[in-house]
């Protein structure tokens, strides 16, 4: 049986890099969060080692129960729940950012690891490529 990666120009072999995507913006005020999520899914579809971090207003991107029907724009945030299918499992949220906004991990729509600023500094230092959004 042919390997499924042989089709549709999917990535085959080559170097796997550690990509870190840093989300710092609220979900609906700008286009950056949606675009960054697309980049995450593309990197994951190419079998890269992907880590996603949410800090500052970025933690609002994964707030549960977002309903954009009333403001006439597409709600892209359910796609965060597909990250597991894409084997993106390293999701980190900065504890200080959550607390400043009165949120806890319970308020988030995906399972994440809540880390301190110090821990986040180390996670960021381990990466090959860091992309902001």
């Amino acid at each position, binding site marked *: 049986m042919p390997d499924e990666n042989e*089709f549709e120009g999917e990535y085959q072999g080559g170097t796997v890099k550690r990509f870190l995507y840093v989300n710092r913006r609220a979900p609906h005020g700008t286009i950056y969060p949606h675009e960054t999520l*697309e980049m995450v*899914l*593309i990197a994951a579809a190419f079998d890269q080692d992907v880590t996603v971090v949410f800090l500052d207003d970025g933690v609002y991107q994964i707030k549960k129960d977002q309903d954009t029907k009333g403001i006439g724009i*597409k*709600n892209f945030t*359910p796609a965060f729940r597909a990250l597991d299918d894409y084997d993106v499992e390293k999701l980190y949220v900065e504890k200080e950012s959550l607390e400043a906004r009165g949120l806890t991990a319970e308020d988030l729509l995906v399972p994440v690891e809540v880390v301190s600023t110090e821990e986040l500094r180390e996670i960021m230092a381990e990466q090959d490529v860091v992309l902001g959004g």
Partner: protein
Amino acid sequence: MPYDYNGAVVEADEEGYIQDISLWTRELAELIARGENIEMTGDHWEVVNFLRDYYEEYQIAPAVRILTKAIKKTMGPEKGNSKYLYELFPYGPAKQACKIAGLPKPTGCI
């Protein structure tokens, strides 16, 4: 490249993906499939319906590897494999089936 059917015109991009997902119907899907030289069977519909459900749930069209894995999880390995899916959709199960399902081009397909 718009589709003409039932006297209405449904706008599509140059690759044939419809622009407004809310205009999708089963009849339109049959028309798009004919353009891809695919005769829709129950097996084809099963995949197209799966993709539509996936989109409803996650708001994205999955890349082929993800689609295969997700189908394997819900329908079992005899359907969740490349060979089966490529027999149904020879030019790529994600690309062709998404087009027929009225979804955008899969995320992660260049």
